């Protein structure tokens, strides 16, 4: 157990290091001259030279990479060229929007998926099941940003129940802030819920065929009782794994959705930083998002290890 935990921890650390190396390579080496990227092709040579010195570009690449990593370990990600404030501060303030948005979307997705998946499994091969499967097929095919636009059109512009975008900030109160996040979260959640509902249904159908469920039925439990008391708990193991993996996609989805609803989160920050050529922000936010994806996968791995003793012995 300890050995496999150590093995996974090492693998997590190596992957994280590789991510920083690739991000550095693509954003600092591939474009040729980061100073030129920042100032644009019309920049004056002396301005370029001054910026190169300020960014430490006169140093060899491996020293700059080392300094970046060392800074990261100390919580120093440098200063944004555009905003003039530390990148950690910038990321911290934007996370106050992105994390609640992702969590709300994930909760909505899980709630919807459980209802649809359990209903479909309990109506296996009947019209209700076919109906849910058809709905999930369509749900998977809808681009989240388009769904976001449709939600704005219906709930904001036609019914006027919600604002069409923007975020009042948590200072305005919990409910006004959550209200601003509800439509974007719903737009993000639908596709995830569609995928997850199929997993819930398939996992439940798998478990319903197991001997212990048959025994429960033989004891006199109805199909619905057996599903609720015995099958559901066992089916949640694969479902939890997929939830973990989907969180990564959801986080990437926030980049698009935050732009549809003009939410001041990490996604909007990274997008604005591209337009402003703020490489310092881009490289740190990309590493930050990739690190969350890797860490979530790592936690899913640990979760697997904790619940399945066979995996512990295998490794």
């Amino acid at each position, binding site marked *: 157990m300890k050995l496999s935990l150590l093995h996974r921890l090492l693998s997590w650390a190596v992957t994280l290091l590789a991510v920083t190396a690739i991000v550095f390579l693509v954003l600092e080496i591939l474009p040729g001259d980061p100073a030129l990227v920042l100032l644009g092709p019309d920049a004056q040579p002396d301005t370029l030279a001054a910026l190169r010195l300020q960014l430490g570009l006169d140093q060899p690449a491996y020293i700059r990479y080392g300094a970046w990593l060392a800074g990261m370990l100390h919580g120093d990600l440098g200063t944004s060229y555009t905003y003039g404030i530390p990148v950690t501060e910038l990321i911290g303030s934007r996370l106050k929007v992105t994390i609640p948005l992702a969590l709300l979307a994930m909760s909505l997705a899980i709630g919807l998926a459980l209802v649809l998946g359990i209903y479909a499994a309990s109506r296996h091969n009947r019209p209700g099941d076919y109906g849910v499967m058809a709905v999930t*097929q369509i749900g998977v095919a809808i*681009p989240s940003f388009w769904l976001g636009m449709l939600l704005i059109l219906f709930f904001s512009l036609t019914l006027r129940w919600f604002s069409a975008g923007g975020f009042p900030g948590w200072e305005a109160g919990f409910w006004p802030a959550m209200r601003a996040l509800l439509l974007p979260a719903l737009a993000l959640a639908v596709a995830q819920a569609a995928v997850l509902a199929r997993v819930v249904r398939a996992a439940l159908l798998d478990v319903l065929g197991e001997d212990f469920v048959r025994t429960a039925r033989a004891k006199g439990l109805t199909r619905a009782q057996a599903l609720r008391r015995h099958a559901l708990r066992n089916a949640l193991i694969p479902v939890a794994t997929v939830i973990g993996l989907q969180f990564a996609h959801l986080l990437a989805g926030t980049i698009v959705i935050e732009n549809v609803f003009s939410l001041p989160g990490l996604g909007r920050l990274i997008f604005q930083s591209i337009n402003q050529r703020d490489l310092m922000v881009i490289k740190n936010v990309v590493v930050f998002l990739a690190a969350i994806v890797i860490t979530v996968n790592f936690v899913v791995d640990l979760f697997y290890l904790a619940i399945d003793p066979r995996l512990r012995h295998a490794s």
Partner: protein
Amino acid sequence: MTTIAEPASEARRRIRLFRYPGLTVGGAIVATVVGATLLSLVWTPYSPLTMNMRQRFQGPSLAHIFGTDQFGRDVLSLLMVGAQNSLAVGIVAVAIGLAVGTALGLFAAARRGWVDEAVMRVCDFLFAFPAVLSAVMLAAALGPGTGNAMLAIGFYNIPIFARIARGAAKGVWVREFIYAARTAGKGAVRISLEHVLPNILNIIVVQATISFATAILAEAALSYLGLGTQPPAPSWGRMLHESQVFLSRAPYLSIFPGLIIVLTVLGLNLLGDGMRDALDPRHAQGR
């Protein structure tokens, strides 16, 4: 004998086709989209790039089935030409993922041991970069464009194909005809190409269809963000981005491009699922 046998087998084939409605419906949708795209290479109802300010914001009518946009351009013509871009990105992105991913998967399955472990760790690493994140990096380093969108979505597809190819290939490597081929003196590369690949091709083709659908969604999202296809080239995602400003004035500008994306992705997913059911009936029964 032959004259009697032929209609019977034809009828059986038809029955087999209708046993998988997803295959038929998905195939029909995809054929229509591909047909319209090919047609747009030689003909569109109106010139997709010519502006006509007198005709701007015309709602759907017989003259303009999907209406006209803020520059008076015919939306149907724009959607037809935009499809060229979506399909091209999809084809190239899936080709990158399929070629590199399948090769990696076959390699890992053939060599096993630490090579297998290393390939899987590379896949874990690539999984850390969803397509949007890779596209953000490439756009920041090299500027936005269709090529970068293709690369970003292609990279995202590599670990998906690698894992599927590896899993399926491992199952083939333990079969008896592989032992026979090894006894005959064939090397790992020849066995992988001549015996393993043909046996896992079904799974790869099904995954390619499903990945194609994902690629179309990703391309639309990237173009919506301005990281994909650049104007004036029409693209579905870009059309949605431009239409958002006119959401209350001309909602049809947002509705039709979105519907076309949903229909295309739905068609590809149905086709992929239908193919999987037709090629592996056990899967269809299990669902």
